[in-house]
């Protein structure tokens, strides 16, 4: 017989009544992932159908066809310097494209000098809340003035380590939010 498992079973039976009662009455919040999936699928299908219709239209419908024989505009003489080229807007900190953002409440701030760690709880409704209710956000960057109970907007590379508490290391930015 599974004696150790049974010891746990008996111990769990003895949990405080208040804690058990709280769990019975707790209503889980449904993840929004399912409708998002359908919405993305519908958007993709609309795009495919629109492109298909556009390709099926005969030339001449919906506006004048471009005159392909028209000569190209004259190229200005002289060298073109890199500064003349159109500039792409700069990416965020470190040049990394932000993959995900979420708002969270700070539970604890630990700063070792070389690395700062925020223990946060994602706000209800954030997708990260479905992954973990506590996340350690580790960053070598300078933190804004935050303390326990503050709200922060965390931008990161989209990767969450499945530890407990969960952990994010690819932090792009942390911004303090008004309550």
């Amino acid at each position, binding site marked *: 017989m599974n004696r150790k498992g049974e010891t746990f079973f008996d111990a769990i039976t003895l*949990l405080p009544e208040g804690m058990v009662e709280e769990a019975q009455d707790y209503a889980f919040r449904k993840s929004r992932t399912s409708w998002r999936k359908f919405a993305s699928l519908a958007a993709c299908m609309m795009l495919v159908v629109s492109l298909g219709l556009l390709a099926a239209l005969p030339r001449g419908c919906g506006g004048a066809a471009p005159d392909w024989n028209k000569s190209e505009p004259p190229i200005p003489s002289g060298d073109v310097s890199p500064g003349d080229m159109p500039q792409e807007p700069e990416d965020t900190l470190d040049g990394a494209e932000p993959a995900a953002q979420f708002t969270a409440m700070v539970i604890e701030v630990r700063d070792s000098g070389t690395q700062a760690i925020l223990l946060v709880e994602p706000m209800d409704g954030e997708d990260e809340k479905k992954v973990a*209710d506590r996340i350690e956000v580790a960053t070598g960057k300078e933190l804004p003035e935050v303390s326990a109970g503050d709200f922060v907007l965390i931008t990161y590379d989209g990767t969450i380590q499945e530890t407990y508490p969960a952990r994010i290391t690819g932090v792009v930015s942390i911004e303090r939010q008004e309550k």
Partner: protein
Amino acid sequence: MEDIQIIDLYWRRDEQAIGETDSKYGGFCHKLSMNILHSFQDSEECVSDAYIRCWDTMPPQRPASLRAYLGAILRNLSISRYRAAHALKRFGGAEILLSELEDCVPSPENVQKTVEAAELSGLIARWLQGLGIEDRALFIRRYWNGDGVKELAGELGVRPNALTKRLLRLREALRRELEREGVNI
């Protein structure tokens, strides 16, 4: 009827107490026992026994939550019946719950003292208190109520696989906490 009124009926030795308990918590009790035994007949008998146990223990007991009190009695009765059935090579639903709970057992090299169920319960309660409400409710619904992973995943709106991983992380976190406390089971 409110819990306090039902408990008053028990204290007045009014047999209506059992009827009121059954009409308010009958469904909850049957589900809880079924989650452990996976046998309608066995769970039916356990629920009846739990009502009798309530009748025998109130008074002197006056629980703060009748549902939690009844549930604890029912879990004890159901696991006893499971043990008896298991001895006769009949397997029940508790098998899965017990094997999952084994993940929480600390490794022998990290332990210093052996604890009893009551002390272990206190440690688990303290660990649960440190979790967020959703994780705490999830742990209790899975391991106290014995609710199925599919059912809980449906309530959360996530895939059962994702929930299984989340539960595994919780059990591992509990194991680490118990190792930190240096306890043996």
